[in-house]
């Protein structure tokens, strides 16, 4: 079962949330961030090249121009491969764990998997971010030493930064699956 909804992030950009329900114990949420815009790319390239041309007129060395081209190319490749995240996916599988994948614009994917035994809970937290108060979804990990403590907080969807309405959808789905985990442990 698959459906898609449109939300917005904390800066007002458009996000698309795709939900896939594979089975009662396995769900996937995919948040797509806005793509790199041609306008900003052109603006940056023009600025760099104008600055290089200004330097060239000063020092009459054509190496400056070739260097500027290389820098622009390398900078763009580096940005696409290391910085620009296109999609963030959360896969939650009952009794196995939670997996977060970030796909970069160049196709690179970086994945983290947290086993269900280490997950204490999935909550929505508030944070003060510059002049705003924002909400973010995070996973609380169990502390091996202290049974009721939290050893680490892992924030989710850090580059997409969706607003509360989107987070509530994801949160409700996750809690349905996590409820299977909690039920036997509380009765024990």
């Amino acid at each position, binding site marked *: 079962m698959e459906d898609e909804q449109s939300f917005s992030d904390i800066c007002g950009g458009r996000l698309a949330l795709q939900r896939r329900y594979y089975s009662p114990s396995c769900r996937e949420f995919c948040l797509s961030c806005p793509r790199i815009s041609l306008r900003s790319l052109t603006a940056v390239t023009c600025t760099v090249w104008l600055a290089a041309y200004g330097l060239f007129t000063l020092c009459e060395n054509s190496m400056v121009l070739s260097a500027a081209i290389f820098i622009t190319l390398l900078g763009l490749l580096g940005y696409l491969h290391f910085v620009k995240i296109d999609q963030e996916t959360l896969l939650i599988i009952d009794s196995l764990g939670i997996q977060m994948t970030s796909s970069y614009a160049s196709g690179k994917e970086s994945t983290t998997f947290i086993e269900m035994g280490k997950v204490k809970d999935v909550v929505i937290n508030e944070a003060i971010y510059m002049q705003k108060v924002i909400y973010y979804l995070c996973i609380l990990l169990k502390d091996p030493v202290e049974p009721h403590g939290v050893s680490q907080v892992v924030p989710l969807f850090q580059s997409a930064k969706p607003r509360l309405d989107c987070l509530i959808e994801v949160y409700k789905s996750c809690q349905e699956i996590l409820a299977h985990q909690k039920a036997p442990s509380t009765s*024990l």
Partner: protein
Amino acid sequence: MGLVSRGTAAAGLGPARAAVRPRPPDAVPNLISTPPPEGAAPGSSRVPSMVLKAFFPTCCASADSGLLVGRWVPEQSSAVVLAVVHFPFIPIQVKELLAQVQQASRVGVAVLGTWCHRRQEPEESLGHFLEGLGAIFSHEPWLQLCRERGSKFWSCKATHRQVPTCPATSGEDQVMLVFYDQRKVLLSQLHPPAALPDRQAGDATASAVGLAAVFDTVARSEALFRSDWFDEGPVRLSHWQSEGVEASILVELAKWAAGPICLLLTCLLSLVSAASACRMFKLWPLSFVWSKLSTCEQLRHRLEQLTLVFSTQKAKNPTQLMRKANMLVSVLLDVALGLVLLSWLHRKDRIGQLADALIPVADHVAEELQHLLQWLMGAPAGLKMNRALDQVLGRFFLYHIHLWIGYIHLMSPFIECILWHVGLSACLGLTVALSILSDIIALLTFHIYCFYVYGARLYCLKIYGLSSLWRLFRGKKWNVLRQRVDSCSYDLDQLFIGTLLFTILVFLLPTTALYYLVFTLLRLLVVTVQGLIHLLVDLVNSLPLYSLGLRLCRPYRLAAGVKFRVLEHEAGSPLRLLMQINPLSYSRVVHTYRLPSCGCHPKHSWGSLCRKLFFGELIYPWRQRGDKQD
């Protein structure tokens, strides 16, 4: 076996196959009322409402029908399938084989269920036969996997022996299929290693938790994977090596040759270290010199590393093995780079050119220092210095430089010979050559070091004198016993002399401070250059090249974790996942497998450095090993 009825898998392709028995209402009475069979380990009970996960190797997905053999992990409700036993087989022989494997590997290998791969039209007889096998090999729960030819979707059932006494309610168990690549899981190593290396404990107390248990099971079951289809054994197995055991001629030859080679090299290295530890080198002037030269430090470090690599003891765990491999590759690369440097130096007589250029450079440095001192003796930067002190200090340092130039000219005929022999040492490694370069720089700028020490000592004395007399000027005194400043009543003549001395020192301060400043800057410049060389040497020493190469070429060997991918799914059939290995990131590889370096690192923070500079205390940029802390 008196087990209470539980829900079973509902994973058939049609309702006729599904054997749905709903779960009792409350999980608690189930657990409590389930008596452990034979009073044995809690391992045979199951965590209720946990989805049953079947880890299935991808190599067996196309195998013929047979029995599933593997390990059942009750805490996570997962069945790790290791191999498939094909028909025909004799149950006694299968049980014997499993007992052998269990004894050899301490893994609780058992028959988990049946595997049915239907290539032609459905064979009902086979189906009944397979169900009958459940009676011969009893296991809780009994897994039944089935695959139609040409269909991607499998059917899974997990049945429990049940006594239909309790009333049934809603809820059914599900089975999840997780495919894994057996070869990669076998060879990979999880970081951080979750399982203890202690292998004396039996299966039930294996402390690997979570998915590390799967890795642990596969890694320890090597005994099961040793037979292949070409062996004329009683039982025919299917696993990742069943089409032929993997081996490499080079690896076998290397293993065979490693023994005698290691022995020989260990003897040679012990001879070398015995020679270097002989008493002659421990006499005072020589031992002092050796401790200050960074070349000796580097050579000692390399000797230690080589001794460790070629020691005849086998590595106890994978970390030690990686460390040995990293050291060996680092030494080989070092020697290779050193030979490249050597060939470059000896081409076109570069050593002769260097030797010819060295004396003029040293002369040039000395001349520049003389100009600097002349400048300081005049009116440097428009400041007015105390003429008498200025002349004294300036002439003192000029005489020093004169001595130094004389010394360099004395050495000049031998420079080329020395350089040629030193250049040969580059074949010991690039790091040794760089250390020698650093030592040569230190020797050539020895006069700068001397000037710095003189300037710093003078300045230090002055500062202490000034602070003490300033206290006297204010009527205070430093109480040594209480380590604090106390008031004190001085006599008039004490105050008078004290104030006079204070004034003299204050007016002489700019001169001394300027000399101190200039020579400290020069010294810091030399220290920075030496520091950069040491940084480069440290980099070559400590970079784990073998681990980085392994991460590049065989990323599955160094695993940070796992990742899952959901395969094509159809409503009604069980969920299929593909488990892949998530390799370690390069920064974590370097961090985990970093080799220990010489230990010659600056130990000051910026704050303490500035404080020492202000008070004129001598700065030792790095501590050699064995120096006591201040």
